[in-house]
C-alpha cells in the first residue's frame, strides 16, 4: 500500500512531475558531462606510468638540456632506459588544427611507451625513414590521413616548413591513452638545426627515464639532479605523473570553476525538487491529516514523502545517466580534439547516482518534517 500510494502520488500532477524529472535529467546530465570534462583534463596524469621519470631544465621547460646528458643519465644505478625529445609545437595548415607534436628518439621512446601500439611493419618503416612520422588514430580520423600521405608542419619554435610522410598509425592500448599525437624523428630536427641554427643543435627539451623498479624513482631522480647540480643546465627530475600535474596546475583555476559549476547545478536542482515537494505536500496536508487520523504515524508519512522525492529524482537521475552516453559521444565529436580522451567513467556514473539520491533525500527533508508535524484538526480543516 505504501509503495502504491507513493508511486501514485509521484504522478498525480503529471506535467509538474514530468518537468521536475526533466530538470533532474538535465542536471545529472550536466553534472556527468562536467565531471567527464574534468576527467579528460586529468587523463594525461592518469595515463602516466609509475616507472617513468621526466627530466627537464630546472629553470623552465622552455630551456633545453645538452644531449651529452644522455649517456650520463643512462649510467645512473637503477636506470633501465633513457629517451629524449622536444616539444615541436608545429602547425598543420592552420592554427585551429592544433594537436600535440613531438620529436623523439624513436627507438627508445616507443620501447618505453608500450601503450602506443602499432603494426610491426609500420614501425620498422617509420624507424627506417628519418622523415617519417607516426600519428594517432584520432588524428587520422580528424584529417582523413592515410599511410604514405605527406604532411607539412609549420614550425613555431623551430621555424620553417617541416615535411614528413606518415609511416605508421598507432592506437592506444588503454582507454586513457591519447591517440591525438604526432611523433617524428629527433634526428631530422637535429640534422636540420645543425645546418640552419647550429647553436641550437644537440640539445633536447626533456629526457624520459625508465627505472628498473618504481620504488627506485625517488633515488634515481635525486641522483640525476645531483649529478648536474652547479652545471650550465641544472635539471629537475620528477615522476611522469608530477610532470603532467605541473601542466594541469596552470589550468587549475578553470578546473576548479568547472567543479564548482557542477556542484551549483546539483544545488539548483535540489532547490527545484524541494520546491516541487513542498508544493505537493502543502496541497496534500489534509490527506496527511486523514492518514494520521487513521493511525498512521510520522514515520509512515516521512517514508511516503521521501519515497516520492526519491522516485522523481531516481527517474530523472536514471534518465540523465542513460542520456550521458549519447550526449558524451556528441560532445566528443564536437570538441573531442581538445581532449586526449573523453570517456564517461564508472565513477562518474556512481557520482551521478549518488547525486540523485542526495537530491531526492535532501529535497524531502523539509516537506516530511512539515507533514509529520501537521496538527490533525488543522489539516482536516484544509480539506473542508
Amino acid at each position: 500500500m505504501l509503495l502504491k500510494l507513493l508511486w501514485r502520488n509521484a504522478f498525480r500532477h503529471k506535467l509538474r512531475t514530468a518537468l521536475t524529472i526533466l530538470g533532474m535529467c538535465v542536471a545529472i546530465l550536466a553534472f556527468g558531462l562536467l565531471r567527464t570534462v574534468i576527467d579528460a583534463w586529468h587523463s594525461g596524469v592518469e595515463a602516466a606510468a609509475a616507472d617513468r621519470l621526466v627530466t627537464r631544465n630546472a629553470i623552465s621547460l622552455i630551456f633545453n638540456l645538452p644531449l651529452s646528458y644522455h649517456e650520463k643519465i643512462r649510467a645512473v644505478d637503477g636506470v633501465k632506459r633513457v629517451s629524449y625529445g622536444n616539444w615541436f609545437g608545429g602547425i598543420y595548415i592552420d592554427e585551429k588544427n592544433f594537436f600535440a607534436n613531438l620529436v623523439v628518439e624513436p627507438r627508445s621512446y616507443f620501447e618505453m611507451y608500450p601503450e602506443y601500439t602499432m603494426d610491426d611493419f609500420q614501425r620498422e618503416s617509420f624507424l627506417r625513414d628519418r622523415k617519417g612520422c607516426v600519428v594517432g588514430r584520432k588524428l587520422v580520423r580528424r584529417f582523413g590521413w592515410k599511410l604514405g600521405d605527406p604532411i607539412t608542419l609549420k614550425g613555431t619554435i623551430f621555424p620553417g616548413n617541416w615535411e614528413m610522410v606518415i609511416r605508421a598509425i598507432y592506437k592506444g592500448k588503454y582507454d586513457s591513452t591519447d591517440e591525438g599525437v604526432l611523433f617524428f624523428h629527433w634526428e631530422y630536427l637535429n640534422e636540420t638545426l645543425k645546418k640552419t641554427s647550429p647553436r641550437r643543435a644537440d640539445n633536447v627539451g626533456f629526457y624520459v627515464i625508465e627505472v628498473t623498479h618504481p620504488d627506485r624513482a625517488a633515488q634515481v631522480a635525486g641522483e640525476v639532479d645531483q649529478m648536474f647540480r652547479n652545471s650550465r643546465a641544472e635539471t629537475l627530475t620528477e615522476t611522469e605523473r608530477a610532470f603532467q600535474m605541473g601542466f594541469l596546475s596552470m589550468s587549475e583555476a578553470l578546473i576548479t570553476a568547472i567543479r564548482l559549476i557542477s556542484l551549483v547545478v546539483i544545488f539548483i536542482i535540489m532547490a527545484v525538487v524541494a520546491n516541487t515537494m513542498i508544493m505537493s505536500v502543502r496541497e496534500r496536508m489534509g490527506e496527511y491529516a486523514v492518514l494520521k487520523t487513521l493511525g498512521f504515524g510520522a514515520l509512515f508519512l516521512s517514508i511516503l514523502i521521501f519515497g516520492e522525492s526519491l522516485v522523481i529524482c531516481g527517474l530523472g537521475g536514471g534518465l540523465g545517466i542513460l542520456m550521458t552516453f549519447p550526449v558524451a559521444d556528441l560532445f566528443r565529436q564536437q570538441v573531442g580534439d581538445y581532449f586526449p580522451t573523453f570517456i564517461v567513467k564508472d565513477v562518474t556514473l556512481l557520482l551521478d547516482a549518488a547525486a540523485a539520491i542526495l537530491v531526492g533525500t535532501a529535497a524531502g527533508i523539509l516537506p516530511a518534517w512539515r507533514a509529520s508535524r501537521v496538527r490533525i484538526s488543522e489539516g482536516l480543516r484544509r480539506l473542508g
Partner: protein
Amino acid sequence: MEDRTFIVDIQEVSKSYRRGAQVLPVLDRISLGIPEGDFLVLMGPSGSGKSTLLNLIAGLDHVDEGRIRVGDLEISSLSESALASWRAFHVGFIFQFYNLIPVLTAFENVELPLTLSGLSSKERREHVETALRLVRLEDRMDHRPKQLSGGQQQRVAIARAFVTDPTILVADEPTGDLDRGSAEEVLNLLEGLSSDLGKTIIMVTHDPRAAKRARTLKYLDKGVLADAPETALAECL
C-alpha cells in the same frame, strides 16, 4: 464517579484554545457517559464545542482538565504516538467531506486502515469486500473517489470507518455535504450499524433529520451540556 457500564466515560473535561495571548474556553467541565451500542447525537450552535468534544473522544486532541475513558483505556493520558496506535484499532472516523485518498480506489481506501492491523492480504480482501457489500458498493470497488457521487463517497468512508471493527464510530456532520436522498441513505446505514451490529456511534450534526435517528440526543451550548431548546427538539420529533 467512573461508571464501567459506559463504553465512553467523560469526567469533568475542560478544553480551551489559545489565540495569541487570548484564551478561548471551549468546553467547561463536561461529564457524559455513553453506553455501548448507543447512537448518540451531539447538537448545538456553531462554536458550542461539539466538534472539539468529538475530537477529544476520538483521541485527536488532548484535554486540558478531566479524564476520558474509552473501553478499558483512559485515553486522556496517552502520548501522541500511543493515541495514533489506539485510534487505528478503536475509532472509526466519518467526516463531512468524506476525506478519501483521491489516488486510491474505493477498495484501497477501505483497505487503508487494515494495513496497520497485521492481517494477511487475503484476510484484508475479505474484510474489505464484506464492508463494501454492507454499504452496497461492491460493484464500485475499483472506482476512484472522483468517479463516485458524494453519497457513494460517504458510503466508502463509512466502510473505511467500520472495517477495522472499532470500539466507537465518530461522525462529524456526515450528511452536511449531501443531498437529501444521499443523506437518508447514509443515515440508514449508520442506524443499521448501531441497531443491527451494535456499534457505538457518536455523531455531531446540525441536521434535525439526522438527529431524529439518535437513540440519545445531547445538546451543547457555550461549552456545557444543556437542555435542548424546544424548537430544536420539535424538529427532531
